[in-house]
């Protein structure tokens, strides 16, 4: 599933469309501690977090995350929106929880034929 395909599912509010929507999403990744994410976020992941600030995007960029999904109603302020735009990072948001969001993505990636 590419980032574009994830966006097209219409499950998320789009804050920013990144510069490379054709990238494959590798796996969902759940973490709210930035330096834990820095050490462990897999490249190409869909990073589900409630931590909504500029530093989240800095870590996403350095770990080459595929996209960032703000969960549980977390929202981006103007600084964060601007940084997402300037760094070309796909930034989405949802009111759903982190687990539910990540599970949805996991199912999309792994269980398509069983659904």
């Amino acid at each position, binding site marked *: 599933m590419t980032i574009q395909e994830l966006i097209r599912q219409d499950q998320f509010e789009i804050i920013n469309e990144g510069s490379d929507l054709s990238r494959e999403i590798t796996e969902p990744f759940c973490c709210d501690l930035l*330096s834990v994410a820095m*050490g462990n976020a897999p490249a190409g992941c869909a990073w589900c977090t409630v931590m909504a600030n500029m530093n989240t995007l*800095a870590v996403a960029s350095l770990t080459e995350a595929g996209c960032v999904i703000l969960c549980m109603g977390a929202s981006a302020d103007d600084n964060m929106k601007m940084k997402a735009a300037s760094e070309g990072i796909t930034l989405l948001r949802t009111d759903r929880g982190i687990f539910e969001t990540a599970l949805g993505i996991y199912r999309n990636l792994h269980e398509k034929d069983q659904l």
Partner: protein
Amino acid sequence: MENKIHFQYLIDGDDFTRAGEASSDIKSKLKMMNINPDAVRRVAIAMYEGEINMIIHADGGTIDVDVYPDKLTMVLKDTGPGIPDIDKAMEEGYSTAPDNIVSLGFGAGMGLPNMKRASDEMEISSVVGQGTTVTMTVLF
């Protein structure tokens, strides 16, 4: 040594909104120099964590970067409070980050361990009351 390129960054200890600028700048410079992507990623991660520490735990400072044909060294120097017990600070999960910083997502106590892992060599020297210098080398 003639065969190196030097960059210096001044890190403003008060300006959280600019945190990460030095590491993202060096990342784009190294990319343009065609350094291998894994090394670029490791440099950027190590410098980002160090840069954040200089802002959160100290009062900013300077980062001096030397790029050689086969490696990069960076020296992060601050005049903050220093680290009383370096071994303890290096432990995964050890953090003295205050609550307002924790609410930004920092304070897992993983920054220094990440720097250690991302670099090929790392050395910390620190004097309480005077400051901390972290030197890291990344081989290309």
